[in-house]
C-alpha cells in the first residue's frame, strides 16, 4: 500500500511540475500572441480602452496590406537579399581560408590563425564609425554592397571550418591528389560535400545574425527603398497616426523565418550549443 501511494504521490508531483512550467511557457509566449492579436485588428482598436485580448473583428487582410502598402514586402526581400548574400560570401570565404589553415603548409600559419581568433574579441559596435567612413569613401552608402561587404568577412567561419576539416581523414583526399586533382578541385568535390553539417551550422547562424542585424543597416541604408525589415519597422514609429496594426503585422513577418528555423532545426541548434557547453572554459 505504501509504495502504491508513494508512486501516486510522485505522479501527482510530476504532473504539477510539467503543468507549472507549461504555465510559465504560455506566459512567456504572450508577446508573440499579443503581436498577432494586434496585427489582425483595426488600428482604432489597438489603443482602445478597455484593452481587448482578442479583436472584435478579425482583419486577416492586414498582413496583405502591410506587405504591399507599407511596403514590408519590399523590406522583406531586401532583408532576404542582404542576409543570403552575406551567408553565401561567408561560407565561400570561410571554406577557402579554413582549408588553407587545415591542410596547407605556409610560413606564419599559426600566427595568422591566432590573429584571426584575436579579431573575434573586438565588439562589432566599436567598429561602426570607421566602417561607415570606409563605406562612405568607397561611395557605397545606401547601396546593398555597402551593407553586405563589411559584415561578410567575419573570421569565426574560417576557424569553424578549419576545425571541421581537421576531423576529415587525410586519406580521402590523398587518392585524389595522386590522380592529379588540384587543391580547389579537392575542396569543392571532396571536402565540401563531407562538411555539410558545419556549413549548415555556419549558414544558419550567419543568416539569422544578418536577418536580425539592425545598427549596421540603419547607418548605411539612408534611403527608405533599400531598408531591411528591422530598419523599415522603425520608419513608422514617429509618423503621425502610427499604424500599430500594420507595424505588428510587419514585426510578425520579420519574426517568421527565425521562428520557422528555430523549430525546424531545433536539433542542430541544440547540438551546436551543447558543443559550446561541453567546451565551456575547458
Amino acid at each position: 500500500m505504501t509504495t502504491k501511494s508513494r508512486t501516486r504521490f510522485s505522479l501527482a508531483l510530476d504532473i504539477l511540475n510539467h503543468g507549472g512550467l507549461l504555465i510559465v511557457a504560455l506566459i512567456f509566449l504572450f508577446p508573440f500572441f499579443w503581436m498577432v492579436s494586434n496585427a489582425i485588428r483595426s488600428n482604432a482598436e489597438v489603443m482602445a480602452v478597455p484593452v481587448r485580448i482578442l479583436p472584435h473583428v478579425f482583419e486577416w487582410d492586414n498582413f496583405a496590406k502591410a506587405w504591399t502598402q507599407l511596403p514590408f514586402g519590399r523590406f522583406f526581400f531586401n532583408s532576404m537579399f542582404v542576409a543570403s548574400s552575406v551567408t553565401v560570401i561567408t561560407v565561400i570565404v570561410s571554406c577557402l581560408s579554413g582549408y588553407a589553415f587545415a591542410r596547407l603548409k605556409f610560413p606564419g600559419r599559426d600566427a595568422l590563425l591566432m590573429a584571426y581568433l584575436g579579431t573575434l574579441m573586438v565588439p562589432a559596435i566599436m567598429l561602426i564609425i570607421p566602417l561607415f567612413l570606409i563605406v562612405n569613401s568607397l561611395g557605397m552608402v545606401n547601396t546593398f554592397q555597402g551593407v553586405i561587404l563589411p559584415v561578410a568577412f567575419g573570421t569565426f567561419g574560417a576557424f569553424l571550418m578549419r576545425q571541421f576539416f581537421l576531423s576529415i581523414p587525410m586519406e580521402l583526399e590523398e587518392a585524389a591528389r595522386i590522380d592529379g586533382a588540384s587543391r580547389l578541385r579537392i575542396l569543392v568535390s571532396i571536402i565540401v560535400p563531407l562538411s555539410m553539417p558545419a556549413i549548415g551550422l555556419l549558414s544558419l547562424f550567419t543568416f539569422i545574425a544578418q536577418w536580425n542585424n539592425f545598427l549596421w543597416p540603419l547607418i548605411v541604408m539612408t534611403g527608405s527603398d533599400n531598408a531591411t525589415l528591422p530598419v523599415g519597422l522603425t520608419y513608422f514609429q514617429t509618423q503621425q497616426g502610427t499604424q500599430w496594426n500594420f507595424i505588428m503585422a510587419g514585426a510578425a513577418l520579420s519574426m517568421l523565418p527565425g521562428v520557422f528555423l528555430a523549430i525546424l532545426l531545433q536539433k542542430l541548434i541544440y547540438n551546436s550549443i551543447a558543443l559550446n557547453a561541453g567546451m565551456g572554459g575547458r
Partner: protein
Amino acid sequence: MTAINDVTEVTGSQKRSRWGSRLDRREGRTAFFFLLPGLIGMVLFLVVPIIASVVLSFTNWKLLGTPQFVGISNYVRLFTADPQFWPVLRNTLFFTAEYLVLNIVISLGLAVWISSLKMGQRWFRVVFFLPTFTPGIAVAIVWMLIFAPGGFFDFIMRSLSVAMPSMLTDQTLAMQAIIIVSLWAGVGYNTVLFNAALDMVPQSYLEAARIDGANAWQRFWKIRLPLISPTLFFGTVMTAITSLQVFDQIYVMTRGGPGNATATLGYAIYQRGFQNFQMGYASTIAWVMFAMIMALTAVQFWLQRKWVHYDN
C-alpha cells in the same frame, strides 16, 4: 587549443629536403590564393577600422571638414567636462549588473526545471529559445505596445489595483522596462546552454549521491552546480560582453530617455557619431567601452578561481 599544437608538431617534424621545399613553395602559393579573399576582407573591414578607430579618437573630425589631431583632449573632455558621460556610464553599468544577474539566475532556473521533466524537454527549450532567433527590433516594438500608456501592462496593473506610472516615461522605471525586454529576448540562449550542460552531468554521480542520502537540494548545490560551473562561467562572460553593448531596444523604446535615464554607451556612440557626426568623439567613447569590456572580462576570469570547478 590542442588541435593547434598538434598541427605545429606535424609541421615541425617534417624533413625539408630540396624536393620538399619546392613542394612547400607551391603549397604556399595555393594557400595564398585560398586565403586572399578572406585576408582582403579582414584587412579592409577589420584591421584598418581598428587602427582608424584609435587614430580617430585623437581627432576632432566631424565628417565634413578636415580632421585635426587634438591629442588626448577627447578623453579629458569625456571624463572631466562632458555632463552626459557619467550618467551614461552609470546607466550602462546598472543595466549590465541587473541584467546579467537576472539573466543567469532565470536561465539557470529554467534549465534546471526543464531538465527535471520526464517529457517535452525539447519543446520547452524551443519555446524559451524562440526570441533569440527573432529581430531585436521587432521584439522591442511588440514590448513597446505592451508598455504603452493605457496598453496591456497598464491594464494588468490596474486589474491588480497597483497604482504605478507608465513604464517607458518614468525616470526610474524606463530602465526596468528595457531590462525586462532584454531578459525576454536573451534568456533563451543561456537556458539551452545550461540545460545542455546539465544533460552532460553523468547519471552515475547523481545516483551515487542519492545512495549516500543526499537530497535533491544537496545534489544540486554539491554535484550538478560545480560540474556545470565552467559552462556557467562561459555563459556569464559572453552575456556580460553583449550586455555592455546594448542598443536596439533602447533605440526603439526610449531613444535614451526620458531625459537620459536609459542612455547607454552603445546609444551614446550612435548619438555622437551618427546624429551629431562627431566621429572623433564617438570613437573615444567606443574605446572606453572596449576598455570596460576587457576590464569586466578580466575581473570575471580572476573571480572564476573562487567558484569555477574544473575536474582536470
